[in-house]
């Protein structure tokens, strides 16, 4: 017993000592958005298979904010090389990066992601507008020229064309990047379109407060925040057949045999309508690279170049097949040129 412990300890010490962690990192490390994760995984895997001289990059998930925070910790082998993000890096985030010594950050836009509303496959067809969503889901709506707590309980009270279903919407929780898009492109737009914004402003709120009132979601249980992933939203729809859920386009396309998608402003979401800008609810996806790590971390530059190659991000590539909306040709070329020129933020 005692001898076994001694031998094992000695073996472990020897293992740690011989391995020596000072050796240069030969593997790209990536962290960030869970929306970008599937795309980064596909590229990382194909990269590892194509360039046998490099190791497959390691891709962590954990969210855009967490990824950027890790990214901005500083430069050096113990920090990550790339941060995936489902939104643009904020000014103060960039500032914290620069303060920590990450002076040169290259921004790469990889394409667009659509956000769709879907119901159970057996439900009726849905045609939504931002106004409907605002009236159904806002905390306070305008009734007879006055701002009151949302009285609507059924979808057909909001718009008679919608079915007679109790309002039950599963929307992304506040930590998700998707929530921002939902608020900005739907709630705020619906607030403005329905004329509620003017009433709120007339009620004495300044621009900032009015914008906040517009995007406040009702908290009476009719709109449910989903903090997990889309698979959780799908499970909710599975158990409540009259629920409406918010999904990413890629997730919907992978589960199109279980879900029926709603049109927004009469446009059905697809890679084509999102690329053309007809479908209103989409957002660009990014990743950020540390310029200081080129030449230090093996394969980093090659990985970014491989990612931007049309065989990956192009409209015929595996990312588009999974559900990414490819950027237009000129924009992709622009990204490649900017990267090659070493353009920093």
């Amino acid at each position, binding site marked *: 017993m005692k001898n076994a412990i001694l031998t094992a300890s000695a073996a472990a010490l020897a293992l740690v000592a011989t391995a020596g962690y000072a050796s240069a990192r030969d*593997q790209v490390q990536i962290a960030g958005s869970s929306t970008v994760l599937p795309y980064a995984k596909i590229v990382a895997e194909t990269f590892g298979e194509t360039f046998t001289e490099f190791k497959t990059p390691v891709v962590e998930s954990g969210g855009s904010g967490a990824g950027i925070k890790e990214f901005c910790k500083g430069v050096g082998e113990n920090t990550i090389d790339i941060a995936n993000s489902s939104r643009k890096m904020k000014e103060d985030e960039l500032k914290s990066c620069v303060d920590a010594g990450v002076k040169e950050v290259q921004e790469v836009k990889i394409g667009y992601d659509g956000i769709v509303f879907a119901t159970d496959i057996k439900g009726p067809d849905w045609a939504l507008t931002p106004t409907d969503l605002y009236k159904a889901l806002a905390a306070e709506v305008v009734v007879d020229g006055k701002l009151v707590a949302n009285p609507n309980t059924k979808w057909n009270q909001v718009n008679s064309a919608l079915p007679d279903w109790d309002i039950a919407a599963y929307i992304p929780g506040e930590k998700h990047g998707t929530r921002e898009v939902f608020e900005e492109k739907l709630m705020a737009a619906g607030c403005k379109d329905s004329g509620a914004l003017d009433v709120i402003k007339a009620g004495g709120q300044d621009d900032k407060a009015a914008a906040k009132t517009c995007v406040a979601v009702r908290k009476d249980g009719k709109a449910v925040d989903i903090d997990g992933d889309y698979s959780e939203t799908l499970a909710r729809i599975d158990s409540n057949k009259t629920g409406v859920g918010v999904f990413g386009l890629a997730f919907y396309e992978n589960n199109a045999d279980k879900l029926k998608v709603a049109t927004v402003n009469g446009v059905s979401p697809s890679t084509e309508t999102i690329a053309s800008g007809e479908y209103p609810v989409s957002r660009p996806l990014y990743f950020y690279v540390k310029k200081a790590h080129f030449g230090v971390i093996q394969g980093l530059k090659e990985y970014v170049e491989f990612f931007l190659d049309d065989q990956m991000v192009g409209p015929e590539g595996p990312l588009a097949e999974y559900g990414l909306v490819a950027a237009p040709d000129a924009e992709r070329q622009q990204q490649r040129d900017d990267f090659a020129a070493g353009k920093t933020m």
Partner: protein
Amino acid sequence: MTDATLERLPVAKAPARRDIGLKRRYAAERRFRFYGLAAISVGLVFLAVMLLSIFGKGYTSFVQTSVLLPITFDQKVIDPQNKRDSDPNVLVKANYPVLAQRALAERLGISPTDKPQMAALKGFVSDGVRTQLRNMVVADPSLIGTTKDVWVLAGANIDSAFKGQIDLDVAEGNRKVSDKQVAWMNQLRDQGVMEGKFNTGLFTFGASSRPETAGVGVAIVGSFYMMLIVLVLALPIGVAASIYLEEFAPKNRLTDIIEVNINNLAAVPSIVFGLLGLAVFINFMGLPRSAALVGGLVLTLMTLPTIIIATRAALAAVPPSIRSAALGLGASKTQTVFHHVLPLATPGILTGTIIGLARALGETAPLLLIGMVAFVADYPTTPLDPSTALPVQIYMWANEAERAFVERMSGAIIILLVFLMAMNITAIVLRRRFERHW
């Protein structure tokens, strides 16, 4: 004893019935037994539902649909300029999926010039054939120019459809397999060249974005490294600390504070240890991110209190008579502890250690912050290379969109449960075999 005194005694008269609440007490006991049974049944029902749902969803993941294809290793495709002797890279970069595509077209009787049909074949066979065929050719270049029957993996959607997990009654546009692919699938099955085979890949592959080539191999290696580190560090430190605290340390306020702190640490949420690991091991000591070494160190910190508490309880359970006898025969304090007390406490210590290890094996929260919740495709060669752990792999797969990952997730849960069960059974067996009752 006279007759007179006898007479005064009451003669065999039954005592007055006192109400001792016999009925009520029996009823209370029956009720209590019923509550106990009900509690156990509820627990068992939940366990059964959980196991049934996991096994029901997961058993199919141990089978993977494969297709037997006569692959012609055509030199025109692999090495058109015949340069493989001067440049070995030619064999690595060749377009191997085309070989499988052609072989499949031949099997199905599709002409290679029929573009729309060939396009519909896309995704029928897994993209993993690139690596599979490449490894075959690199290992044995003499294959070039020959034809060989090779089992290749079917694509994930075909695999799901073959197992009946895709509802074929849904409109064709709304599902991931076309009617044409289903017809081909049935044709191949009738020919006997498409069948479900045991999914060894689930145990050997690393993480992958393709369900059919995704496995828990890297995660098992990562978990193994971490368990080794936990065992090697936490057991000696934990046992040494408990022996000192239990046998040698004076009982004063300081040791009381230490004891309270150890008990508190055992109850600290594991994510806190992750934060500590990030701050100390990665940011301060500069150890690499995502490495099993850091994961093992964090889990060691988490397991230490459990081991210390179990060890102290085991040491305290050794009767004082053993110590007194040893001391009385002239043994020193150290000899008493190491020759008599520790051997008797060993079964309890081992049980506590194994239960602590089992808990560490199932942890994901502390690993999140040190970068181990990650997509890792390459096997780690040392504990310093990036790796994942079994529960992390389950978590990652739970978030995937593809249908085929759902069964793989349940499959991975089954594998984890088997490991946990094996560890717990070992603990029980050790206890049964070596435990002494006094």
